[in-house]
């Protein structure tokens, strides 16, 4: 019984595979056959292998680098340092502050110091061991508070405070009848995409280079690579290679400049592939945060004010920290009507690994805090937590604390009400169950003892697309032609498909608009104009709109041809490759086009957004997406082990483009939210990552993920193509606080820090380890330590 894709909604045209259908992935067959080429699979004759020497010290000066031994090794073709950077020696998403290769100073463990190209990865690795770097090790600045203090060492010329965003709204000193305070902390989560950073750089023999790469934004890579190679952008051509997931972790550069430098230096193709340990050091992570909140309300539960002090650890370099700092400030209060607010959002440099974009981008951190506060307030008021949220839910026409009017649709009330209506999973007798349905699973830690059930709710929201004045436009070229007797539409964009299904959405839009079934979405490369970043849940909206408008232009030109030839005046349409005029078939496309090609390019710019003023006021965002979650958990309160029984969610998506792909985004986002709630954290001690491997950085397995019940709302956004909203990030925002709320419900513990560890659930106080375990004697988890690599 194979289920055929049910057509949930009559698509605009009878052409199959349009908007609203669960169309399959065009790259699906090669992916299930293991023939899809990812950037780590690239192979070309005569290619060399690149490798990166990384600093073992979180903070040190470099006195000198000796490369002669490595250069002398057989099979080594190049050993490069900062002196070999042809152009600008620094790069960065917003501020050029990160060295391509360190020269004077290293600011985080894992920072790139030198490069090697060799004929075998093993040779390259051994060559790294032969490069001697004379470090003067310095005391690292290991947390954001220390970095803020006056006497902390200045990690960058202009000090350690990278950015501060204040939001002042109404009178934050307004009196309140009931006040709740709280301190909240979010650990450093990793994107943990499965495909390692990788790519292949091929010199074109005329000083230029072609780079095949996994990334989220070809053009921002191209600009930074061209700048550091001192080449005009046209001589640095990037093509998207198969991407093994991204979640924000591929927006910054990893090996792009490095591979191109090695390729140009050796005049040989160079492939670079990070292993998992190097990947943990080689990309940015989600910003850890320390947050202090104070909520004031009336006795009957109406919010009076919200005060929040947010401190983010941006790590050694800026990446996209500025934008995360702003996002957090604008979403600090949650989707509630808050008459008075004072928010301070601080972004600090430290010697910890650099942090940047990860799915949720600043909204995840503050949502954990404001939803915990709402539960604390509800408890103090003796109110049901959902009723308290409903009473304060923000609505279109109101003003966000940062001054922007809430645009329609903003269904906070509807999604909260509905998630509560979704039927609860039936209660199971704890004793005598199959081990796999108990906390601890087959590790046999309980047969039902200590198991308590908890239920928790949370609602979150975020901006879709880029904000505060940044114009993240997208470019699309559509070409319609006849190929061996068949009308074919080719879609050209530079938009990165990282697994989210954009290739399907682009094809569905083209089929819906042009009534042609045979649509080919071409490989993304920098020959087409920028499509902006595949992040901020924005591609279906912005690139979708560019594709839609370009198709409309092509369609209009066809109709002009039809009118010239047939003089038709009334409404024309194209269905199944034929021109239709109110039901009557006039002519097949082939006749109109014969062997010509119609091609149009569109650069779509969404509504302009504006920077915030010094009081944090401004129309900073152009679309908002909302999602509510309910989590049911079972906790073994004696051991602190957790089983998530079920997650129910309601989300407003404006218009369902591809039902199955939407469900995949929601279920995948919830899995990452669950991971942050229960197990995911990069543990750092004195600036050093303790768990740079999948052995100790745990992401949810299939045995950790509960069934998901979801209800989708389709309230069309008038400004968006087909009324759609971005869907990628909302599932990761409120799923985490919903799970923690359920844990609090089951255990009555404070749980102010995520990920929640068993120690927190059973109330073992968090105290620093009495003595640091010595490397050999008693440290059992040897894996994931950079120093061990230097023993060989």
């Amino acid at each position, binding site marked *: 019984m194979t289920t055929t894709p049910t057509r949930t909604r009559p698509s605009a045209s009878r052409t199959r595979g349009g908007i609203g259908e669960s169309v399959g992935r065009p790259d699906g067959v090669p992916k299930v056959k293991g023939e899809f080429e990812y950037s780590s699979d690239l192979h070309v004759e005569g290619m060399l292998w690149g490798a990166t020497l990384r600093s073992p010290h979180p903070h040190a000066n470099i006195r000198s680098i000796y490369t002669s031994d490595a250069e002398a090794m057989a099979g080594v073709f190049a050993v490069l340092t900062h002196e070999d950077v042809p152009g600008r020696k620094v790069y960065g998403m917003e501020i050029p502050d990160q060295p391509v290769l360190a020269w004077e100073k290293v600011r985080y463990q894992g920072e790139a110091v030198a490069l090697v190209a060799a004929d075998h990865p093993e040779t390259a690795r051994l060559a790294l061991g032969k490069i001697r770097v004379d470090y003067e090790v310095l005391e690292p600045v290991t947390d954001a508070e220390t970095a803020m203090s006056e006497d902390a060492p200045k990690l960058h*010329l202009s000090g350690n405070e990278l950015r501060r965003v204040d939001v002042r709204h109404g009178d934050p000193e307004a009196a309140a009848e009931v006040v709740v305070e709280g301190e909240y902390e979010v650990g450093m989560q990793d994107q943990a995409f499965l495909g390692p950073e990788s790519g292949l750089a091929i010199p074109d023999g005329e000083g230029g280079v072609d780079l095949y790469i996994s990334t989220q934004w070809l053009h921002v890579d191209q600009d930074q690579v061209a700048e550091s190679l001192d080449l005009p952008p046209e001589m640095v051509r990037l093509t998207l290679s198969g991407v093994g997931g991204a979640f924000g972790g591929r927006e910054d550069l990893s090996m792009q400049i490095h591979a191109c430098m090695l390729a140009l230096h050796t005049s040989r193709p160079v492939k670079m592939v990070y292993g998992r340990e190097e990947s943990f050091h080689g990309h940015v992570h989600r910003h850890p945060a320390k947050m202090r909140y104070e909520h004031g309300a009336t006795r009957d539960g109406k919010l009076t004010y919200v005060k929040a002090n947010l401190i983010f650890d941006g790590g050694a370099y800026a990446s996209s920290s500025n934008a995360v700092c702003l996002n957090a400030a604008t979403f600090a209060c949650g989707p509630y009507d808050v008459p008075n607010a004072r928010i301070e959002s601080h972004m600090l440099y430290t010697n910890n690994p650099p942090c940047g974009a990860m799915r949720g981008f600043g909204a995840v951190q503050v949502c954990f805090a404001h939803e915990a506060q709402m539960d604390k307030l509800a408890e103090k008021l003796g109110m049901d937590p959902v009723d308290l949220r409903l009473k304060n839910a923000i609505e279109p026409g109101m003003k966000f604390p940062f001054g922007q009017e809430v645009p329609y649709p903003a269904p906070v009330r509807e999604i909260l009400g509905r998630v509560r209506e979704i039927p609860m999973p039936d209660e199971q007798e704890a004793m005598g169950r199959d081990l796999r349905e108990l906390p601890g699973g087959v590790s046999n830690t309980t047969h039902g003892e200590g198991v308590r059930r908890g239920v928790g709710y949370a609602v979150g929201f975020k901006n879709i697309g880029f904000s505060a004045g940044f114009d993240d436009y997208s470019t699309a070229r559509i070409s319609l032609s006849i190929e061996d007797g068949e009308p074919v539409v080719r879609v050209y964009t530079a938009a990165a498909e990282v697994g989210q299904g954009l290739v399907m959405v682009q094809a569905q839009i083209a089929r819906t608009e042009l009534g042609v079934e045979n649509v080919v979405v071409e490989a993304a490369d920098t020959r087409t104009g920028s499509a902006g970043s595949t992040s901020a849940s924005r591609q279906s909206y912005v690139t979708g709109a560019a594709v839609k408008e370009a198709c409309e232009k092509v369609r209009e030109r066809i109709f002009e041809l039809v009118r010239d030839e047939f003089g038709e005046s009334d409404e024309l349409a194209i269905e199944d490759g034929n021109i239709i005029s109110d039901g009557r078939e006039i002519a097949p496309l082939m006749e109109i086009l014969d062997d010509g090609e119609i091609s149009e390019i569109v650069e779509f710019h969404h509504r302009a957004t504006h920077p915030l003023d010094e009081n944090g006021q401004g129309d900073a965002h152009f679309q908002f997406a909302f999602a509510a979650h309910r989590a049911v958990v079972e906790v073994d309160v004696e051991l602190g082990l957790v089983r998530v029984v079920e997650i129910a969610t309601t989300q407003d998506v404006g218009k369902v483009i591809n039902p199955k792909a939407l469900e995949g985004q929601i279920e995948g986002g919830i899995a990452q939210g669950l991971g942050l709630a229960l197990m995911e954290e990069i543990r750092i001690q004195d600036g050093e990552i303790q768990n740079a491997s999948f052995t100790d950085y745990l992401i949810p397995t299939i045995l950790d993920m509960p069934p998901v019940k979801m209800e989708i709302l389709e309230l069309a956004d008038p400004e968006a193509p087909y009324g759609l909203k971005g869907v990628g990030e909302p599932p990761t925002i409120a799923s985490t606080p919903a799970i923690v709320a359920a844990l609090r419900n089951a255990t009555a513990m404070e749980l102010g820090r995520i990920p929640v560890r068993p120690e927190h659930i059973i109330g073992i106080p968090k105290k620093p380890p009495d003595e640091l375990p010595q490397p050999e004697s008693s440290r059992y988890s040897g894996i994931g330590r950079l120093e061990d690599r230097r023993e060989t």
Partner: protein
Amino acid sequence: MPGYDRAELTAELKVVASPGAERTPREQVEAVRRVAGDSGLAHEAGPETTVLAGGRGEVLDAVRRVVETALDAGAHVVEVKVEAERDAERFGS
């Protein structure tokens, strides 16, 4: 250098330290770095290079102060490259 909140103006200043001056090349670079740092816009961009990133007005003021400091410290040559962000004019200015 596109990104999220891109700086409207980026200025790259490279001090070509002159060996004969009172102050050593090292001191010339340090002097430049200190005054650049005080502008709140500066990052190191190479052994002798500093980059200033920010709004048009503040960057140009800082460039002037940095060049003056370099000359006072004995350097004869300061290479300056100023780059306006392609879409700068759309910055609601």
